[in-house]
């Protein structure tokens, strides 16, 4: 029969045993699953696999974070840093590129280098980052003649292209004119910056040439400086050629080298790419590892569930102490179990939880019994004997052993229990329990308390004894030492049975002396007391009254106590402090021009000062503020005097003489010099003042004063304002007969302007154009303005500075004569002049 079986199914049997073996050995099973896992993962439906893996991967990541957040941070660092950087970069304007760069460079080698640089130069870290991370390149530099807009020179960076530089040059200057005209900008200020996307045009305007740089990126502010410097150097080196420039740039070939220094300016982007490959590999590894963990865990789980969830539960019950399974059976999808259980054993019902066996299908029948297993006996003994804290029960080789100390009553009860158990139960050994009656215990506790007192500084125990269950103690204690009564707490000695007799004494131990000194002397905050080598040392500052008290205390202590050293306390009594402040105030006064301190003294806490002061000098009272000197204690006596310090003399002269605008008083090497033009009467007064002052030894030099004649100026103004330039009908350029009038007008304007400037005023001349009433009103308005413009140009041609000439068109609104005749119209077609002074 056995042979037959061997023949028929031997192959199957061996195969079956191999598989069973495989399933039984977790090591082998894991190896087998590991072999097919990659293929299985690859074959699985992506959506399902993702869903299945998600919780496990989540849990794995969670655990990893809990275990060590650093690991995951390190893995993800290259992922989230660029993400943060990107979102910041998008939100903030390019100008804030610095922040982006800072983030990028905080952890890099550059970052360290820049931190070092910041530390070395004293600049802030962000400044250094900004300096290095503004990425830009100067692509072109154009040097443009200011007058004509013609290109003088052009230099381009490598690979930089542009349209014809000559045209660009002219167009740029046309655009500058356009902006200037459109917004009424002043002559001097050029168009600084044009920005278009990534490109910027910076123009730096010099007297004869404009330097336009075309920059791609974000240039730093210093680049302005560099460009300005280049322009300055060009003006210095080639000023003559620049002035004479007429379109022939061969004269100015040298400036190209200068422009090249502009174009060489750049800050390139350092290309530290982000390690995508490393990040991708790391992420993939993370996912695969998580997946493997999950699959192996899940397959184990299933195997157990399918093979014998119930069997596992039963064997768990069987392994439980105090539970005996008598029979068990699985039938028709239901589970039946019966047996014995000790009341102290685990509840079979509660053991079901976590086994994945459905409690609804379990039918149990349990009978209570008392287990004689040592651990149950131990539990029962603990409950019935209630051993004191000083006794420990344990199991040793199936025996129950009691150790420790207990009162004799408890030992008797334990002995009875041991006798009962000897019939069949485990042995109960109480030989190791020492008999401790309360008296013995209390005596021990008392001794512990006494030795604690003896160790206490400031307490001396003289006598102690125990009699009739009472404790007696006597000795000395310092009032500052710890209270012996309060030290009782925690010793388990009954305070009601303690009788103490303490005599106070003063301990001379340094720490007690220090405490007493602190309590009696009240040292100010500025004084610090400390113990060094058993000496008490005071350091700091204190008023003299305190120092006196401290000295008295030191003398007292010298009889037997520790040394009290107060030599390191400086005297800062309020008086000394006040005297210091007073001296500071006096020296401040003495340094003041126009104040002479004659005498000063301190007496009885009051301050006395007397001297001379110029009325124009600073007020001594006002100078008190901020010196911390109490004004109520200051008694001053000041006599006014006139300081001959030139500064004061000038002040007085300015007040008394009220010099006209055209006159300037200045101090040159101790002498007062008056320069300018003034009316004759004023010059006389100034001379009189000079004579007076010379008696006091002060020099007032009026020799450079010139007389001012205003009468002539008024005459000239009258003559200018009555001059008109006339025009033929419809013409905006005056006829040749007006030439002598224009010549004379130009001369008069020039003369007036010059004289006015000498007397410190600026004259401006308003040219108002007029037209007759023939023709349309709009045409008349523009003709009138054009006439004024033409006259301005003609006067300019005759040497009148254009900035002195203002132009307006009045159209027909301000006729010179009523317009009802031919003569009337020809009188009204004119440009009139008015003079304004400011």
């Amino acid at each position, binding site marked *: 029969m056995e042979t037959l079986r061997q023949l028929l199914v031997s192959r199957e049997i061996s195969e079956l045993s191999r598989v069973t073996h495989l399933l039984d050995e977790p090591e082998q099973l894991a190896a087998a699953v590991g072999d097919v896992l990659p293929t299985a993962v690859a074959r699985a439906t992506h959506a399902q696999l993702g869903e299945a893996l998600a919780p496990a991967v989540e849990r794995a990541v969670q655990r990893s974070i809990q275990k060590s957040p650093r690991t995951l941070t390190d893995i993800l660092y290259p992922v989230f840093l660029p993400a943060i950087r990107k979102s910041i970069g998008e939100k903030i304007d390019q100008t804030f590129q610095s922040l982006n760069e800072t983030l990028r460079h905080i952890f890099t080698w550059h970052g360290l280098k820049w931190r070092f640089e910041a530390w070395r130069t004293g600049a802030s870290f962000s400044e250094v980052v900004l300096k290095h991370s503004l990425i830009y390149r100067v692509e072109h530099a154009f040097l443009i003649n200011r007058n004509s807009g013609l290109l003088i020179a052009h230099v381009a960076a490598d690979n930089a292209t542009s349209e014809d530089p*000559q045209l660009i040059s*002219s167009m740029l200057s046309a655009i500058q004119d*356009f902006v*200037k005209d459109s917004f009424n900008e002043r002559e001097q200020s050029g168009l600084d910056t044009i920005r278009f996307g990534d490109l910027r045009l910076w123009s730096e305007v010099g007297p004869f040439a404009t330097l336009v740089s075309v920059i791609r990126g974000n240039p730093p502010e210093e680049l302005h400086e560099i460009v300005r410097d280049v322009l300055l150097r060009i003006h210095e080196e080639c000023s003559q050629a620049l002035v004479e420039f007429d*379109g022939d*740039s061969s004269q100015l070939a040298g400036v190209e080298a200068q422009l090249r220094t502009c174009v060489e300016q750049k800050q390139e982007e350092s290309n530290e790419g982000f390690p995508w490959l490393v990040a991708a590999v790391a992420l993939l590894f993370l996912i695969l590892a998580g997946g493997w963990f999950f699959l192996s865990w899940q397959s184990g789980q299933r195997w157990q569930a399918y093979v014998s969830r119930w069997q596992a539960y039963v064997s768990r019950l069987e392994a439980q102490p105090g539970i005996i399974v008598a029979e068990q059976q699985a039938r028709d999808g239901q589970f039946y179990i019966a047996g014995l259980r000790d009341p102290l054993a685990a509840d079979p019902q509660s053991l079901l939880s976590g086994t994945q066996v459905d409690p609804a299908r379990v039918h149990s029948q349990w009978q209570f019994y008392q287990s004689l297993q040592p651990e149950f006996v131990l539990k029962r003994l603990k409950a019935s004997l209630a051993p004191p804290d000083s006794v420990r029960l344990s199991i040793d080789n199936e025996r129950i052993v009691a150790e420790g100390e207990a009162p004799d009553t408890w030992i008797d009860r334990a002995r009875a229990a041991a006798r009962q158990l000897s019939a069949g139960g485990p042995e109960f050994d109480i030989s190791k329990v020492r008999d401790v009656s309360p008296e013995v215990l209390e005596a021990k506790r008392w001794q512990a308390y006494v030795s604690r007192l003896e160790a206490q500084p400031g307490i001396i125990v003289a006598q102690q004894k125990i009699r009739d269950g009472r404790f007696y103690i006597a000795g000395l204690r310092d009032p500052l030492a710890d209270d012996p009564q309060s030290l009782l707490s925690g010793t388990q000695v009954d305070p009601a049975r303690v009788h103490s007799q303490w005599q106070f004494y003063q301990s001379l131990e340094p720490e007690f002396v220090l405490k007493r000194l602190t309590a009696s002397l009240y040292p100010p905050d500025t004084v610090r007391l400390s113990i060094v080598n058993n000496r008490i040392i005071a350091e700091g500052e204190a008023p003299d009254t305190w120092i006196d008290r401290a000295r008295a205390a030191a003398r007292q202590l010298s009889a037997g106590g520790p040394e009290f050293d107060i030599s390191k306390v400086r005297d800062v009594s309020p008086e000394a402090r006040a005297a210091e402040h007073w001296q500071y105030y006096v020296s401040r006064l003495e340094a003041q021009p126009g104040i002479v301190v004659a005498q000063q003294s301190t007496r009885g806490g009051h301050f006395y000062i007397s001297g001379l002061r110029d009325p124009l000098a600073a007020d001594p009272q006002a100078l008190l503020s901020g010196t911390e000197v109490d004004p109520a204690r200051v008694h001053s006596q000041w006599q006014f005097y006139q300081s001959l310090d030139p500064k004061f003399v000038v002040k007085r002269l300015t007040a008394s003489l009220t010099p006209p605008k055209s006159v300037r008083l200045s101090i040159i090497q101790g002498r007062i010099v008056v320069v300018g033009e003034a009316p004759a009467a004023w010059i006389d007064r100034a001379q009189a003042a000079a004579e007076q002052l010379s008696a006091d030894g002060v020099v007032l030099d009026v020799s450079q004063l010139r007389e001012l004649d205003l009468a002539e100026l008024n005459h000239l103004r009258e003559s200018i304002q009555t001059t008109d330039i006339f025009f033929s009908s419809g013409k905006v350029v005056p006829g040749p007969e007006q030439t002598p009038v224009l010549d004379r007008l130009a001369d008069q304007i020039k003369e007036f302007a010059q004289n006015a400037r000498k007397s410190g005023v600026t004259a401006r001349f308003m040219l108002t154009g007029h037209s007759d009433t023939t023709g349309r009103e709009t045409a008349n308005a*523009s003709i009138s303005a054009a006439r004024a*413009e*033409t006259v301005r*140009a003609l006067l300019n041609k005759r040497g009148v500075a254009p900035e002195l000439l203002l132009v307006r068109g009045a159209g027909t609104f301000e006729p010179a004569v009523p317009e009802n005749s031919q003569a009337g119209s020809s009188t009204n077609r004119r440009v009139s002049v008015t003079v304004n002074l400011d």
Partner: protein
Amino acid sequence: MLQKKICMLGGFSVGKTSLVRRFVKSIFSETYLTTVGVKIDKKSVALPDKTVDLILWDLAGEDDIGSFRVSHVRGATGLVLVVDGTRAATLTAALTLRERVEAEFGAMPFVLLFNKSDLADRWVIPDREIDELRQRGWQVYLTSALSGEHVDDAFLKLASMVTK
């Protein structure tokens, strides 16, 4: 590199822009004229002894003499005065403009172009008047931006005048 700034002057619609377009292939769009008020072109002209780059400034909007921006002419070495031969008033306009420029910047070389010579039937300028202007020693040309007649001659002449 020798360059000269030249300004096109003349009344509204006389053909300044068309003349420049005929003379040089432009790189800037003509919208510059209406936006910035000026359009700039460049033409290299080869003369017997040298080459000069003419930087041509074409100005917009001289329909109203009052609005003319004299400042654009600053630094120019020559003018192209353009007259529309079919409108007599444009001659006065051109001469007035020249006067204003001269008053501001002094005398400078110019050529005077009577344009649209192809429109013979609507021509209103008498030959006598043209002769009279030539008598003053002025360089006068009858041009057509449409056919290109005498356009190059006029610019060439001005080029040699400004490089004298």
